[in-house]
């Protein structure tokens, strides 16, 4: 088997137009499955021990993953999709269920609820500018 690329903690991911994200998280909540053209799509709240983020599922991913599932992402992308900042597998990425339940998580910060801007030192890169909301504004917490 190929050596596994190191997993990034969610808090270290930065928006970029590259399929370069390898990470593992637990799915906390799922929105409604909707149709975008002929493809199913569904927004989910996911998190690891360091941060939370919105995860955009496509096609059969929408029914394959359920809250409580631990998912491994390889070569995924964190970028804007219709003005929303989301993590998704994209065409070259892969999302696979590797377990259930036994993973710790935090619900704040939520990287999709942060305003990002160009890095003054390197305009090709993004840096955090402001916190729009500490928690997801799309998914409410069950507490």
């Amino acid at each position, binding site marked *: 088997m190929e050596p596994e690329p190191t997993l990034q903690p969610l808090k270290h991911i930065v928006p970029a137009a590259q399929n370069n994200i390898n990470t593992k998280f637990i799915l906390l909540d799922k929105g409604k499955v909707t149709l975008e053209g002929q493809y199913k799509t569904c927004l989910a709240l996911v998190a690891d021990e360091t941060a939370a983020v919105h995860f955009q599922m496509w096609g059969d991913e929408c029914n394959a993953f359920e809250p409580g599932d631990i998912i491994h992402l390889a070569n995924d992308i964190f970028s804007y999709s219709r003005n929303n900042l989301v993590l998704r597998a994209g065409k070259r990425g892969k999302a696979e269920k590797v377990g259930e*339940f036994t993973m*710790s998580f935090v619900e704040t910060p939520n990287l999709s609820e942060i305003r990002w801007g160009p890095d003054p030192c390197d305009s090709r890169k993004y840096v955090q500018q402001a916190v729009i909301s500490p928690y997801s504004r799309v998914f409410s*917490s069950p507490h």
Partner: protein
Amino acid sequence: MLIKVLLHEAENPLEITLREAFCCLEPKLRPPFPLTIPTQQDYLDLNRAILYGVLCEPHFAKVHIKHLHGVITDGYEYFTSILIKIVNELYFKLVDSVKRQLIWVTHEMVNVLAVGFDDLLVALMRQIVGGDFGEENLWLCFEMVNLFTSKWDYFIEEEPLVLSSALYVFLRLLADHCRVLSIPKIEALRQMEIDFCERMLREKLYLCLRIGRDLVRLLQDLVHVPEFRAIWKDLLYNLSAFRTDGFVDISQIYSTRTSKFYFLLRITPEMESQMRFLMSDVNFGSQKRYQIWFAKKFLALPERKTVLVDIVRFICCAHHPSNEIIHSDIIPRWAIIGWLLKCGVKNYVEANLKLALFYDWLFFDENVDNVMNIEPAILLMVNSIPKYVDVTHSLLEFLFILLDNYDIERKEILLRGVSTAFCSLVRKGVVQSLDALTSCDMLSPFLKERLGKLLSETQFPLVPSLFVKCEKSSSLHTDYTKAGCSN
């Protein structure tokens, strides 16, 4: 194919190693078999390859097993250990034909007295889900009770203790199986389970007594079944019927603490790992989502909720957190039990839940029992006062109902057990005093009066100090987990 892999599910590492060994060695798995002695690594690979062959090629299973018998040099220890791993980690994913083969090869391992075959049987019994009346689950029940019944003499001779485990499992399953009537096929299974348990109790009571006091708890849940009602009567009034030396009174069973091993028998490894994760890694206040997931997976159907009783026994007796965890922000055991009590169960399950929570209180003896087994109940009562005094009230009330009714002829034993339990909890610093209960304005005066009476009536010299805050208790508190006897 060994397991069902769903869309977007990662391959399983255990399945990969078995499949790879099989693919690699496939040409060598057909006769004539080479006579060369394999190296240690080749030997392990060959074990894996044969195992995969046995499970996935039913038509060649006899050839594979013959091959295995010819090469084995470790008493089947490695072979059995992978089987156990498969059962623990993959059972619920196994393809149906593989499950059939698994039972077949289990019979083989029993026949050759493989090292660890008893652990394999225990692993299989743990996969039987209480309150699940699905065909697959009932099939596994049938296969297991059939195995124990058909090899009865053999087990008595070779590994009698595994029969005690089987008795615990089937008595507990019968409580569920005797409550449903409308399920086809269950009648024959139920009768086999009854026959097995009745034979154990009638002919091998000394093996049954190994279980300890929880044997009584399980039996009492079955007194509505004629066979068990008769046994129960004999246990109370006609002990000579059992021809067991040294057994003169049922209170001897009360005084034997049940080993934590038995409680694991009635929860699946998956439930166990999720419960342990909750109580070791999740902070108090962050548990809500986990609770929803756990309930959705294991408690969604009303008939499945009887497993809550087993979970409560598991939490009280088989999961004892370290002092480090007790003093951290991790969710405490009493809070988990508080949640389980509120899971919306039928009255008789709720009564059984409370009995499970207080069971070790009734017979508590500092020489035998561990204060950690009774800790969740006192903390749940005390900590529920501010917001959920109804919980405190119903628990304390239930405790007194038990004292009055659980065994009318042995009230003294229960009284001694419960008052010793209160004493130990204060003396070991689990609670600083019982003031929270005895002087709680929100509790009914009747309950407070009974509690006061219970504490003052006992002949223990320690009791008066229960009402005084113990100065040293804060230092004692740190160490109370070490104070009891270990399992």
